[in-house]
């Protein structure tokens, strides 16, 4: 996105590209998080026999609890990353010599 070569500040038309980029990163992050939640809770709660098209009672209750737990895990992992100092968690930084 920074490809656009118009760093910060307003560009023609009054659009601050940096602000837009940050909003897009946030949007993509929430979407990715949501998709992983859908996929994980599907694995945990939905029987793969597919005998009927509707969620049964057990599946519905499981989904509700699964979403709550997934959110809890997100908080716990976030705390852990913060306590460790987010920046050096990747392990990849600076490790790119040559392929």
């Amino acid at each position: 996105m920074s490809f656009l070569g118009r760093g910060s500040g307003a560009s023609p038309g009054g659009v601050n590209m940096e602000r837009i980029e940050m909003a897009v990163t946030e949007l993509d992050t929430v979407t990715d998080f949501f998709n992983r939640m859908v996929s994980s809770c599907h694995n945990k709660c939905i029987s793969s026999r597919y005998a009927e098209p509707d969620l049964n009672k057990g599946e519905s209750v499981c989904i509700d609890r699964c979403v709550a737990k997934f959110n809890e895990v997100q908080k716990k992992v976030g705390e852990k990353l913060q306590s460790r100092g987010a920046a050096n968690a990747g392990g990849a930084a600076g490790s790119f010599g040559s392929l």
Partner: protein
Amino acid sequence: MDFSNFNAAEQAHMTKIIEKRQMQDFLKMYSNLVEKCFNACCNDFTSKALSSKEETCIMNCAEKFIKHSERVGARFAESNAEAMAAAQNPT
């Protein structure tokens, strides 16, 4: 997400980007659904046609996945709304 501090030009820009993302997300969900239901329902390759049993499984799988996504989405929206309310009215 809150775009209320965006000016009109920026909001118009975001709207276009969000529309594009929604189309991309829909297309990705579509192929994800094909892959998931194929993997769950098709295990017999003695024929190239779907058996009626496989077809029923596929239709149930797709329908159920959509209902599942909707339910997860509803719960997720609720928890986000609660989190925002808590952030604005700390006790």
